[in-house]
């Protein structure tokens, strides 16, 4: 799922800096670490963005740009797994389950679909979600960096809570189209599938699993999307009031 949604649940949890709740935030060491983490991630996704632009300029077309940013994409998207640890340790006030769900879905798409099914790597749908993820993540990580430093420019906050309106559907479309494109190759090669009889008395059909994943987007995407819209109204109107009262 596009990370535009992944910020949703954390948006109202202490990072906004404008929330009236008095929560015991992370200690100084944890804050320092988190700032470094978020800066590194922002830089990483900027590298991916720059890589995309350079490859586009060099090639002259927007097809098959995946190959030029494959390694940094894998590295930094997988690095997001640390965020689950952050929640588990309590230095980030988000739900472990929600964060895990969101990060795992990204990692799943990166490794279990795009990496594993080589034939889809040249699809345009891959570019669609990579661009969506890149822009979203750059904004999201810089948002967290500034929030931790208690110096959040309104522009970043606005960007985070507005651009998702376009980026989230864009990312989801890219993801779904990529999974759909991968289906025939999975069926053909029997990727990650095991059939009876075998000594574990277990069977798994990756093809069916991918179809179920696609179907699961139907209930999940609208929920996350409307949650973000709701957050947007809350956070941006709150800032309006705050400004008026100054």
């Amino acid at each position: 799922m596009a990370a535009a949604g992944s910020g949703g649940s954390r948006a109202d949890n202490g990072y906004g800096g404008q929330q009236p709740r008095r929560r015991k935030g992370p200690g100084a060491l944890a804050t320092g670490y988190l700032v470094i983490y978020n800066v590194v991630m922002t830089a990483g996704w900027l590298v991916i963005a720059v890589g995309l632009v350079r490859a586009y300029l060099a090639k002259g077309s927007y097809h098959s740009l995946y190959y030029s940013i494959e390694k940094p994409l894998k590295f930094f998207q997988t690095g997001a797994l640390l965020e689950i640890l952050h929640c588990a340790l309590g230095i980030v006030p988000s739900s472990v389950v929600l964060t895990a769900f969101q990060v795992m879905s990204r990692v799943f798409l990166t490794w279990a679909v795009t990496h594993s099914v080589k034939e889809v790597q040249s699809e345009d749908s891959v570019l669609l979600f990579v661009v969506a993820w890149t822009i979203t993540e750059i904004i999201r990580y810089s948002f967290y960096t500034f929030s931790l430093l208690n110096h959040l420019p309104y522009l970043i906050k606005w960007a985070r809570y507005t651009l998702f309106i376009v980026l989230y559907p864009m990312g989801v479309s890219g993801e779904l189209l990529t999974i759909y494109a991968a289906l025939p190759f999975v069926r053909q090669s029997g990727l990650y599938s095991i059939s009876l009889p075998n000594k574990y008395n277990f069977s798994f059909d990756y093809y069916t699993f991918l179809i179920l994943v696609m179907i699961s987007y139907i209930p999940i995407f609208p929920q996350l999307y409307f949650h973000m819209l709701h957050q947007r109204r809350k956070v941006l109107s709150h800032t309006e009031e705050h400004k008026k009262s100054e």
Partner: protein
Amino acid sequence: QVEPQATVADIKNLFSKSHPQWYPARQSLRLDPKGRSLKDEDVLQSLPVGTTATLYFRDLGAQISWVTVFLTEYAGPLLIYLLFYFRVPFLYGPRYDFTASRHRVVHLACCCHSFHYVKRLLETLFVHRFSHGTMPLRNIFKNCTYYWGFAAWMAYYINHPLYTPPGECHLSLSPVPVTVIVTVTVTCHCHCPHYINHPLYTPTGSKARKIPYPTRNPFTWLFLLVSCPNYTYEVGSWIGFTIMTQCLPVALFSLVGFVQMAIWAQGKHRSYLREFRDYPPLRSPIVPFLL
């Protein structure tokens, strides 16, 4: 307007008369909005209130009785497993409908599984005593999905025409006779700990609690080492079932069950330690000496 000797339960009854949509089981009354719920048997006189008391009400949501939930969630696996065992149509290919497996272990597995759930149903009806009468309605859907889902998943593979019994593949563990003996023994574990555990409440029906101790019954000797031997035996029997059937979904079910029961056991252990000063120090929550 109530007597000083009135209990919280009486108040709840009166409240539900004036607000019929909130039956007593759904009410949570407390003296402080952020405090703990008052128990039904608390007497008004013993609470720190004057001549007028302010009680805060919270709606716990639709409730359903524990007994109903337990009966439903245990009856499901019993029936579902049998559907797969008898290979009812639409589960496997049409040429397998109503056929029987040729492996002895499959029949034995059905007996063990069915016996297990029949035992659980009987316990729910005749042995268990619960501290609360009800639980939130949502739980029945959650619990039934878990039990029924796993039962279907396990039963599908064990009763599948292409099932590979242990002993036929040279890489599997132990020959069939030994695993069968192990499983049957452990599955038939007496739930005597339950008889001790739940009659934590004295026979007079009051809800006073006492530490459970081993008796002459050998199955209760595990109380020497463990706070919740019923969970220990439960995990043991599912591990036995896993070894007997050598089926991955069964192993996963055992693992998930173990994690959940370990969490419950640790909670219970901690509440025992809080409640009883002289709690035996040797005991661990669920796995002797380890967990």
